[in-house]
């Protein structure tokens, strides 16, 4: 059996069967039609002045800043957690992994309620924080970051764990024989080898944090300037000024696609080589 030089057509050629093709097309329509409609409905004439709206800029800035901080937190905590899951053996590891993935399937609004229960004014942690340090978290920008971190962390951990597992363990052995301790192996071998996967996990986490709505509005509220991120601004605008909601949504779409394209070029291209 020889591979064709173009590599595009596998040996089992022939027309794609309709019973596969039709659902595939339907899937594409479901995915792309709303995005196309969003672009079509954009009020292009008034777009420049709407974009200059300080409230939009404020929400955009807040979203990007909080999502970025949340991503950094996800890296700082998620990478070590992923390493523990991928590289150590202990009883209850599968249970730990299952627990990590719970927020993945949790409705975001439930996450918000859970965060309130923990960090609310009278929460398990929030109560003592307020009593002893006069710190309150709910309805602050900190709460936004916390909510975003909570929902994004499982994505980051699971995808980084996959990236770490995919690296050849033989390199760990080589490094150990050469004298590197576990930290040295982690920092100088494991992480560099898994870097594309780690970056991919962070992009996923960043996108998840940027789009966070349910947990944020429940736990952080919807205050312009401090907790009103882009998704919340979209929701608010939709009730009074649907055109503004479309503009905000378009911005989110463009930012997401731009980041994806940028990092794809930088990391995924390298990984594919």
């Amino acid at each position, binding site marked *: 059996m020889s591979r064709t030089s173009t590599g595009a057509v596998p040996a089992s050629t022939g027309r794609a069967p309709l019973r596969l093709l039709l659902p595939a097309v339907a899937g594409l329509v479901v995915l792309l039609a709303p995005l196309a409609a969003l672009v079509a409905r954009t009020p292009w004439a008034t777009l420049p002045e709407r974009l200059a709206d300080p409230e939009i800029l404020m929400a955009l800035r807040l979203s990007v800043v909080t999502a970025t901080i949340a991503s950094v937190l996800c890296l700082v905590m998620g990478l070590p957690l992923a390493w523990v899951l991928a590289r150590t053996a202990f009883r209850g590891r599968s249970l730990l992994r299952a627990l990590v993935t719970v927020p993945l399937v949790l409705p975001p609004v439930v996450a918000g309620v859970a965060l309130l229960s923990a960090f609310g004014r009278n929460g398990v942690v929030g109560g003592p924080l307020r009593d002893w340090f006069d710190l309150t978290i709910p309805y602050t920008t900190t709460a936004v970051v916390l909510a975003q971190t909570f929902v994004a962390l499982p994505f980051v951990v699971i995808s980084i764990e996959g990236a770490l597992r995919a690296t*050849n363990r*033989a*390199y760990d*052995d*080589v*490094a*150990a*024989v*050469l*004298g*590197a*301790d576990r930290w*040295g192996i982690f920092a*100088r*071998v494991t992480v*560099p*080898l898994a*870097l594309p996967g780690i970056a991919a996990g962070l992009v996923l986490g960043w996108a998840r944090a940027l789009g966070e709505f349910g947990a944020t509005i429940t736990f952080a509220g919807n205050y312009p300037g401090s907790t009103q991120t882009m998704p919340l601004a979209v929701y608010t605008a939709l009730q009074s000024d649907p055109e503004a909601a479309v503009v905000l949504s378009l911005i989110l779409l463009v930012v997401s696609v731009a980041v994806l394209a940028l990092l794809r070029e930088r990391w995924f291209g390298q990984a594919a080589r």
Partner: protein
Amino acid sequence: MSAFLEADVVVRRAGHTLDVSLAAEPGDVVAVIGPNGAGKTTLLRALAGLLPLDAGTVTCEGVTWAGAGTPTPPQQRDIGMVFQQHLLFPHLDALDNVAFGPRSRGSGRREARRVAHTWLERVGVGALSDRRPHQLSGGQAQRVAIARALATDPTLLLLDEPLAALDVSVAMALRFELARHLADFGGVSILVTHDAIDTMTIANRVVVLDEGRIAQAGTPDEVAQRPRTDHVARLVGLNVLRGHSTVTDVRLADGTSLVTTTPFDGDVFVSFGPETVSLTVGEPTGSARNRWSGVVRSVVPHGAAVRVHLDAGAAPLIADVTPASAARLELVPGRRVWAAVKATELAVYGASAAEPPAPLPSRYV
């Protein structure tokens, strides 16, 4: 006095157990050969500390690496390791791959790179120090891997089939360099190999593993001339049969017997070279005392001769004949032929590893 390296390695795995004792002195190059699954790589990994021992001890230069108490982790053993796949770190260039060991063992960046550069020069790839592994050929990459293993100045060097993944011509060139580096190396080298040439050219001692145990140990010459396992017999290209000898009559497992000129009582191996086997179509009537009827399994060129593999009674046999004979005898797979060997061509030696080779009685000398 105990040896420089003393290892008594027991590793139990589901289905098989490795149980091997080794001792070696500085400068020794010990070839470890044996069929797949014999435990060669397991032995290396156990010596490196990458696999825990289930029992036994490893001491090197008077330091106990494994035995009673917590085993020394690989990081603190003075070892270098070379793998079949070079396993150079793909994200580092050649120089930083070699500098990795010295860096990990506490050298500063500048000093580590200086050492690395010296080693790259020594293995002949100094000009490639800024190449990433994927920009190196197989032979170049393995040279860098050898430099990386030696750059930490180990006392024990473990090589796991370092030439097996290379093209034949590249392997041949690197083999002699490797022999030179190992000769210069002051510590103990343990070389796992599948190649009889490696064993003969590089090693000064050979350990034959079979099913997790040492089947034979000795100098390359001893092992090559008196193999005790089918695997080694095939590696060195000899026929080896096992039987029970009563004076000069050796009865094989299948009931046939051989006549030898070496009196011996007990279980023996009988070996003879493929060039000593003559083939005929009809039953031979000459002076050859030992003959088998067999079926040709394959016929392949072997140097200037033709190597014929036969299924003959007790064991598969190999016979080398000239191309002219092969044509005249119409040797094709499936053809029935007779094989014959003169009694004087048979080497006979005791089958128990403990027994010394049978001395020739004076009347035969």
